[in-house]
């Protein structure tokens, strides 16, 4: 487990705002988190929570101002040493040296992220040629080793395959091979298994965990699936309407969620329980995920929250409060709710 060494990536008060018809809308609001070497941070949220926008902001892949405004700091300390750099302040050329090299990304849909008209060998070699100045031949040799590492059978023969000739799981393995080609310090995986069958999802999760053990890279895993979170995360950040609702070690979060939204989210996950009565309803969170253009005032979750109190929860955005070691919770009433549950 990561010790006292400084975080590889420290995100401080990251905000992302988009220009919309109705004015500026805030997709990510004052988000702060850290990831260390060898650690997996899961960012969990529903649609509109800002989880994908966060990953794009870290990679500087959002559209430029004035359509989109990004503020805050993203401090990155490369593992090879050297001073930390604020990724948001880097010149485009400096960012190009980081992106795909020190920080790599895997997206949800491998079919749309791979180029359909190039063989996969070329696509894996590209990063090595670009970032490492490798020759085409050497890069293709490296591509064979990468394909082998991500568990693709007959890797040498596969170099000439096109994306459409591979299954969804194999395509995602190729995406991971591309991401790993420059041995990144941080891997951002944005819903990498959502489009896959559960059997293939299990394979990809195991592959990512193995690769992380070998390389010690940090992983930021973005997902909506709490089952997947339980499977891979060391720490969890729960997002709702662009704000961090709770941040905790994975066991603490599942054992004792402190924010009512986290509690509701955990309760609404259907469990595979052979002893439960048939046709048993699920515990749903009432209401709808808020429209980012019309966020409720105060705590954005209050209209759906059974603990909400008029005049308090709808008046001001609650601060993120420390709640034990490495734990943050954003709820005005979390202490009362926890004490009430114990009483």
């Amino acid at each position, binding site marked *: 487990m990561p010790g006292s060494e400084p975080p590889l990536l420290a995100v401080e008060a990251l905000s992302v705002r988009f220009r919309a018809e109705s004015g500026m809308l805030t997709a990510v609001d004052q988000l702060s988190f850290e990831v260390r070497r060898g650690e997996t941070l899961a960012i969990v949220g529903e649609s509109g929570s800002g989880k994908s926008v966060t990953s794009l902001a870290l990679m500087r892949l959002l559209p430029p101002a004035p359509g989109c405004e990004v503020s805050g700091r993203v401090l990155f300390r490369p593992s090879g040493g050297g001073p930390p750099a604020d990724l948001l302040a880097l010149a485009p050329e400096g960012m190009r040296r980081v992106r795909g090299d020190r920080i790599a990304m895997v997206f949800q849909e491998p079919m749309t992220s791979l180029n359909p008209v190039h063989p996969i060998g070329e696509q894996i070699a590209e990063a090595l040629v670009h970032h490492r100045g490798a020759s085409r031949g050497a890069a293709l040799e490296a591509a064979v080793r990468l394909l082998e590492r991500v568990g693709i059978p007959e890797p040498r023969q596969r170099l000439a395959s096109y994306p459409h000739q591979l299954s969804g799981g194999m395509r995602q393995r190729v995406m991971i091979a591309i991401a790993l080609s420059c041995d990144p310090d941080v891997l951002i995986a944005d819903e990498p298994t959502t489009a896959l*069958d559960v059997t293939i999802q299990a394979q990809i999760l*195991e592959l990512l965990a193995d690769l992380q053990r070998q390389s010690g890279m940090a992983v930021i895993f973005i997902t909506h699936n709490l*089952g997947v979170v339980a499977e891979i995360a060391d720490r969890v950040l729960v997002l709702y309407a662009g704000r961090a609702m709770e941040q905790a070690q994975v066991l603490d979060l*599942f054992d004792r969620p402190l924010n009512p939204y986290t509690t509701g989210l955990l309760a609404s996950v259907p*469990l595979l329980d052979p002893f439960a009565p048939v*046709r048993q309803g699920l*515990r749903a*969170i009432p209401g709808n995920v808020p429209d980012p253009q019309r966020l409720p005032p105060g705590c954005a979750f209050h209209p759906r929250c059974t603990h909400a109190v008029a005049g308090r929860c709808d008046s001001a955005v609650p601060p993120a409060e420390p709640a034990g070691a490495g734990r943050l919770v954003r709820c005005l009433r979390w202490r009362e709710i926890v004490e009430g549950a114990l009483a």
Partner: protein
Amino acid sequence: MTGAPLLSVEDLEKWFPVRTAGLFARQARLRALDGVSLTVGRGEVVGVVGESGSGKTTLGRAVLRLLAPNAGRILFGGVDITNLSRRAMRPIRPRMQLVFQDPFASLNPRMTVRNIVGAPLVVHRRGDAAERAAAITEALELVGLPRGAAERYPHEFSGGQRQRIGIARALILRPDFLVADEPVSALDVSIQAQVVNLLLELQAHLGLAILFIAHDLAVVGHISDRIAVMYLGRIVEVGPTREVLARPQHPYTEALFAAAPVPDPRRRGQRALLAGDIPSPIDPPSGCAFRTRCRYAQPACAAGRPALREISPGHVTACIRDDLLLGPSPRGAPS
């Protein structure tokens, strides 16, 4: 259940002609349904699970006669509808309806909710204007949409509300059979639970029979009376939900359970992974189609296509090995 089932499918086959790729391209058959037999009783919920490519969506389309099967029989309410003409199907159609997966793609963005939900009444020439208006109001109320929703357009609604609109449209003709094809998989987790609960309430209230197609075993486990597990166009196991969950009889069922992520970090990584991908339905393996990925496979598994054998009343499996003690959804049992 008493009496004849509402829906009875016997040895259903559906294949699609395809050309194989490469130098020796040839005409081949993609076997989407390869001899499927299944029943759904009145008021019964039958869950169908399997990986993509297992044929579960094709099964849903075929029983509604949205696809013409190539062989086998479909009996609905005691009537053989396998080869009925469009005209002869017409009086039966209102009794069988479909809820789609994607609530964004299955609602016409240029139509108001009133016209979307009321469309089946128009198609089937039901009622006059006043009766239709009353039926639409009732259907919207039934699925928990606010008054005033009728005059709005789909884009004004969230994913969960759109799925409610799709369900209202499916129910307005008061069908007795619903095919729900992945009705919650495009929705947010907190909203999925709402829609599952709504379907359960409506099912009990209206006495609906539902063929519930999903890849999420846990959702299927919550809603179904019985579960059918499909692999490469075949049913490999059918049984009462609790029995299938507690005592899976087919290695594929066991593998599906093992792969499902469990929201409990203490039980991380205790799984037997299924290797590889589902084989091509153009060239399925001989004998048992699952044998190429099965950790219990023996030479005999390649010999003949295994028949479904009964383990206990109503619980059948297509595995020839009767010496296996398979895991009771190993990571799903309460701790």
